[in-house]
């Protein structure tokens, strides 16, 4: 506010000072005109000289007056405020060559963009923190000292136990067959074949499901070496979508203390057996009862090609519907 007032005073004095300069210029030019014109024609020489001198003196007085006026006004105008808020970047705006080096305008745009980015990032992190996807057994906020030093026991399980759990689940569903292998160390890789529709490669870390890839029944799941190919995506968009849903499912079902419950719920399923309920389902992921039924629910909501996926949900997978969740 003070800034505005001081600017107001400056502006008036500025305007007056400018007109004072114009007055000064005109009186100076009158002086020189008078000199150029010389003496006017009068009766006597003294008369002429007197008239000339008087005229000349008048002009000089007016110049003097104007100069004093200008000095007075210039004192009023004052210096430009020292504390302009733009500091050095404001000086960039004074550069007149705008087309070749539009530095100042680009600088402004970059600043606005980074502000917006910060704001959006703040909003996004707020939303993401509401639905924590960390699957560790420790709670947040426990200080480093109080955190238990020992490794979580659910990560170190004998492979035999894992094999048993998997084979038990295998026997639960007639249409589904699970083949377990351990080509890379102790983590199990499951090749789940569902009827004649699809194959799923599930990479596990002891009993936790790490990643899944869903491929078509006719697609090749082995690399040229004959090992299970756990990285390449399916060639069909349908199964790429299903892979996304399966990944959402594995992130949704999280119980760090009881991973075998998780695995049982992940497969098309009976309800999880023991009492503790899995953590509140995240808002984002679709309400999943099972991986295959999931196709119909979320595929219907897919905005990109609702027609396509809607039909997909009903037509190619009646086999799975009978496999069923009840």
């Amino acid at each position, binding site marked *: 506010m003070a800034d505005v007032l001081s600017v107001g005073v400056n502006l008036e004095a500025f305007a007056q000072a400018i007109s004072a300069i114009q007055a000064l210029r005109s009186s100076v030019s009158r002086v020189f005109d008078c000199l150029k014109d010389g003496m006017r024609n009068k009766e006597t020489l003294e008369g002429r000289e007197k008239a000339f001198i008087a005229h000349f003196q008048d002009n000089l007085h007016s110049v003097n007056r104007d100069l004093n006026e200008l000095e007075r006004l210039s004192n009023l105008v004052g210096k430009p405020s020292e504390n302009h808020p733009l500091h050095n970047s404001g000086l960039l705006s004074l550069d007149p060559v705008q087309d070749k080096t539009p530095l100042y305008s680009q600088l402004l745009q970059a600043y606005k963009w980074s502000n917006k980015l910060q704001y959006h990032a703040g909003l996004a992190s707020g939303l993401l923190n509401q639905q924590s996807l960390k699957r560790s057994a420790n709670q947040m906020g426990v200080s480093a000292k109080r955190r238990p030093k020992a490794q979580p026991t659910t990560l170190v399980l004998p492979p035999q136990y894992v094999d048993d759990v998997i084979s038990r689940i295998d026997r639960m569903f007639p249409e589904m067959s699970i083949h377990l292998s351990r080509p890379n160390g102790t983590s199990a890789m499951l090749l789940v074949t569902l009827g004649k*529709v699809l194959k799923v490669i599930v990479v596990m870390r002891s009993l936790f499901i790490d990643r899944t890839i869903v491929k078509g029944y006719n697609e090749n799941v082995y690399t040229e070496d004959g090992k299970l190919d756990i990285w390449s995506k399916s060639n069909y968009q349908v199964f790429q979508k299903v892979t996304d849903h399966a990944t959402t499912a594995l992130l949704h079902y999280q119980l760090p203390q009881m991973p075998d419950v998780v695995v049982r719920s992940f497969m098309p399923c009976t309800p999880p057996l023991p009492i503790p309920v899995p953590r509140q389902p995240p808002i984002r992921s679709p309400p999943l009862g099972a991986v295959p039924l999931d196709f119909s629910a979320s595929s219907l909501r897919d905005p990109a090609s609702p027609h396509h996926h809607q*039909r997909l949900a*009903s037509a190619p997978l009646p086999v799975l519907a009978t496999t069923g969740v009840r």
Partner: protein
Amino acid sequence: MGVTCVSQMPVAEGKSVQQTVELLTRKLEMLGAEKQGTFCVDCETYHTAASTLGSQGQAGKLMYVMHNSEYPLSCFALFENGPCLIADTNFDVLMVKLKGFFQSAKASKIETRGTRYQYCDFLVKVGTVTMGPSARGISVEVEYGPCVVASDCWNLLLEFLQSFLGSHTPGAPAVFGNRHDAVYGPADTMAQYMELFNKIRKQQQVPVAGIR
């Protein structure tokens, strides 16, 4: 190899084969399909040579030797209702050696050539069926990659066909009816093409002026 449906599109009233193909491809492009090159399926007919028929006087069987650009390294040999052999391209050379048993029927080579479009997981091929120098009809083939069991995705295929063929949508091909849960294979596609070619061969006596 996904489930495939091969059908014939009748030539539109007052238009030539070329123009109908043009119409169809334009519809496909408006639907959003991307052009992905060309395809070619051809068929040659052989009949069993008289010397092998023996005294029963049974009619000679017809054998069709077909190629499909979708499987460039293979050659398909099929009988009308019988087994289908999938061999590599040396089979053609072998047929020359088997001249004693199988003789090629004259002027029997029939083929369809056209463009291949990809739309999401569907592969659509629209081709002009030609026998010698003359165009005889239009073949439309639609393949749905992800599914290998015919009965599961017939409805989806039908709906897709309806979206661009309109009223000319075909009924379920015969090969689908035979085995409900068997895995669909390329041999079934070639059987469908064989039926299509035979139908076109029989229906042909359209006046030549109508074709040009």
